């Protein structure tokens, strides 16, 4: 049963609500589509990471004891990698911890 409720204020509020609902729905749809696109890109990124790993695994970097490759990147059409010494990194971390303790 449909009964009219005569209240102009209520009509205005409900109409506004309806409009907002439509707008929110539109944004939800866009968000959903964007999230889907982001997921697809995430998968493609994973694939590229795996391809990078496959190439890096085959390289002989001639690393010394405690050295690791921490980064590989492209710059101006060339590929580079960065090597760090884990012992030095650990020492640096300890130094920072000591500094932080002294400040306290």
């Amino acid at each position, binding site marked *: 049963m449909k009964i009219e409720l005569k209240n102009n204020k209520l009509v205005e509020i409900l109409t506004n609500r309806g409009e907002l609902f439509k707008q929110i729905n539109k944004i939800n749809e866009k968000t959903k589509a964007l*999230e889907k696109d982001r997921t*697809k890109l995430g998968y*493609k990124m*994973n694939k590229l*990471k*795996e391809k990078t790993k496959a190439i890096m695994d085959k390289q002989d970097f001639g690393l010394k004891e405690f050295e690791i490759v921490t980064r590989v990147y492209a710059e101006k059409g060339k590929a580079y990698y960065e090597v760090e010494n884990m012992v030095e990194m650990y020492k640096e971390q300890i130094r920072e911890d000591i500094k932080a303790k002294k400040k306290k």
Partner: protein
Amino acid sequence: MSKVEPEVYMINSGYDGCCYVRLHLPCIYNGYKTDKPSLREDKINTKDVKHFLDRADVVVFHRAEEQTYHDLAKMLKANGKKIVMDNDDTFKIEGFHPLAQFMPDGTPQENLQRRERNLNEFMEMCDLVTTSTETLAEEYREHNDNVVVLPNYIDPDDWDEPMRNEGDKVRIGIVGSVSVEYDYLHIKPLLKKLSERNDVELVLFGLQDKKTRKKNPMVSKVFKAEYAFWDSLNKEQFPWVKRYDYNERLNEAKLDLMLIPRRDNYFNRCKSNVKFLEAAMCEIPVIAQSFDNGPYEELEQYKTGVKIRDNSTIINELETKLEDKKLKSTKKKELKKLIEVEQKKVTDKWEEEVDKLINDKKLRREIGKNAREYTIKNYNIEDHYQKWDNAYSSLFKTI
């Protein structure tokens, strides 16, 4: 009316096999969430799993043979989710088949019947079952009315430029399950001959290497005869690799020719053409066994591959007749002779076709190139991924 676009979540049973083509590629192209977002992923984020399962409208299980899958699916279904199962193998395996005891990677099959029963029960509660071939679809329709065929596709992005063999010898390969599933028995004499030829390098891509075998004596026992045969051949071996290394390794094998001698039996009629697709992406021409509803019937003779008609049905019929104890010895002799003739017929045909391709480099190259073009034109996931969305959307009323 507009199509409903449900949120889909896919639950893997591992990426070291068909999950890659069945789940991972559809996920990448449709943007579905999954518990294993990359090939090398070996940890599952349970928080994410819970979050995305809550949000999902459709949950896809791959080969849901374990009880835990059943329990989870029942719970999800009670919460209004649509349940889908995907599978692309049959569990109706004959007892003689090594797969009845072990998977090719050495994982015990445990109780095949139990697993088959679980799968069948799972299918009965599903809203949809998806699979790769019409033969499998027919099998699954005994347990669910809503079965859709979603073929296997390839992603060209997964494949590097085909590598070429620059050596003097023709590299001929047997790849994957063909080397363990008793499919090669009828070409054993040919393999032996090829391994002894000076102009051929025989390549086996599959089986475990000797070191790995030692770690698993039970598997070695089951595959004893096969290992002994392959070990007796002069060949190069690429042992099993993880899925994420497979494409590259296949390309690096630089095969000039791949042999797929699968015989006509129920297990092989359920197979998809994926081995051909993978070979094609490396421009490797294949010689494959042909039979009704077989996986390689689409190959165009000397254009995209070479087919050799199988005669297993005739041989099987003759062998059945031979089992009749009332048969007179003359009739038995006659039947035995007929079996030998039929066996020789197919073996000779294999020799003939292999020889033809060994001696015709130009034809090999043409077939390889055509096969790659054909595969990219017809089996590129980028052109077909919407089929998954269409199948899942059909579970909901249009609005």
